[in-house]
């Protein structure tokens, strides 16, 4: 456990979209060097949280500090500088479709550095090797499977050696093999590169096998926080339902509807 200050500090965050509150008084601390999972039912705003952390949207009130920088105080240029220290893996990879795999990974290098072609080539191939796709360097994104494009996107996310890696739902739609690959990569990269990882997901089983810390969000607040094993025995109905994958509980099975028999009878009554 790292004794240095948290890499991400969110205090008392409020955020609403068209008068619908998403977060109310949110407090989250992400420790350096760990893999932190952010979980919750669909629609709790997990992706929104990522956008707040990366500065893509602004909070209504409260503070967000990333690597010691207060996001609200940053100008656009400074925000861009901060973003170079982060890497983000999008749900569908988000590779640039008109560039090859090699060019996609080389993209940040070409845009931000003046490195020679030879150096760029070495860096790109190294990162591709780390994700196991060095042989696919000349392929186009359209030719890749879902799992492969996500791995390329991962190579791209680490090519500038960021301090913080953010994964937005990396397990969605993957077959068991690709899933295993991604899990392995998340753990290995975090440890070998000495970075911090934030994984947003709702795959409890998958993420529990690699995460060091878990935050469970529901109703705009943190309802549970701890290690994966701590969460399994957390004394809360909400947590139990989510972790156990139970069909009914604090999140009801039935969508609010009028009385069942009443509705059936009134239908036949109209005949």
């Amino acid at each position: 456990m790292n004794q240095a200050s948290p890499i991400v500090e969110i205090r008392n965050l409020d955020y609403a979209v068209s008068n619908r509150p998403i977060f109310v008084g949110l407090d989250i601390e992400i420790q350096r060097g760990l893999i932190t999972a952010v979980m919750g039912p669909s629609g709790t705003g997990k992706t929104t949280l990522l956008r707040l952390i990366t500065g893509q949207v602004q909070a209504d009130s409260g503070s967000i500090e990333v690597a010691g920088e207060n996001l609200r105080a940053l100008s656009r240029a400074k925000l861009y500088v901060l973003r170079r220290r982060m890497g983000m893996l999008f749900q569908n990879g988000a590779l640039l479709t008109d560039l090859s795999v090699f060019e996609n990974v080389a993209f940040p290098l070409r845009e931000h550095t003046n490195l020679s072609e030879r150096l760029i080539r070495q860096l790109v191939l190294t990162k591709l090797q780390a994700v196991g796709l060095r042989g696919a360097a000349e392929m186009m994104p359209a030719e890749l499977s879902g799992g492969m494009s996500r791995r390329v996107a991962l190579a791209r996310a680490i090519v500038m050696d960021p301090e913080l890696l953010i994964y937005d739902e990396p397990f969605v739609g993957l077959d068991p093999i690709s899933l295993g690959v991604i899990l392995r990569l998340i753990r290995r990269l975090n440890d070998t590169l000495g970075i911090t990882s934030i994984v947003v997901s709702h795959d409890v089983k998958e993420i529990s096998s690699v995460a060091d810390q878990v935050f469970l969000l529901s109703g705009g607040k943190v309802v549970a926080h701890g290690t994966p094993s701590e969460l399994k025995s957390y004394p809360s109905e909400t947590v139990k339902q989510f972790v156990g994958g139970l069909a009914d509980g604090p999140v009801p099975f039935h969508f609010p509807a009028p009385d069942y028999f009443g509705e059936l009878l009134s239908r036949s009554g109209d005949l």
Partner: protein
Amino acid sequence: MNALRELWQSLTDSLEKLGAVIQFLLRLIANSPRALMRFDLISQQIFNCGALSLVIIMLSGVFVGMVLGLQGYDLLQRFGSEEALGEAAAIGLVKELGPVVTALLFAGRAGTALASELGLMRATDQISAMEMMAVDPIQRVVVPRFLGGVIAMPLLAAVFSVIGIFGAQLVGVQFKGVDAGSFWSQMRASVTLADVNMGIVKSLVFGVACSLIAVYQGYYATPTAEGVGRATTYTVVTSAVVILFLDYLITAAFL
């Protein structure tokens, strides 16, 4: 009473939209100098908008020119002035048909391509990914497309007009027997540089308008499949109306 309020609402909405679009245009212009340094991106977009539209422009130019030749001949020979066919065809094409028809075709082919490309990038998070990689998507992806369209339009319109003139010549001289010498000499005697300039100005203005609408719709498309589809349809429809409206303004201003 409700209808009036709705009318007022749609009016203010349109005005707001217009303001947003103009702001976007200013942002594009402000980013243009830096984008020009990445000429490879712009050149790729010139290919995208221009070279790939050449075939449809040339085909349309031939047919429009030939129809112009037919109709022009039919009308002029009633007054015994068939010799003026070259002049009529050239003026019609250079001042009006060239810029306008090219712009409409451009909106349909290149405009939709631009809108759907940007819309798709938006829908697949490529734009967000770029922002996350600290690359300004406006500079990298939008401005090159905008400039590519603006540069390609006048060139396309010129090609259209030239091919159209030859199409009219084909019909007039080869089919209908108008004297080739008179066809060209009367044209030369009456078409002025001012006419050609008006055509160039028009196609430039149309280029700006069409490219702007296309990239705006694509960039701000709702990131879903229907959103991209809507963006493309809206691009063509809005472009067409704007082109015709601007055509009136420019023609009136010059005459």
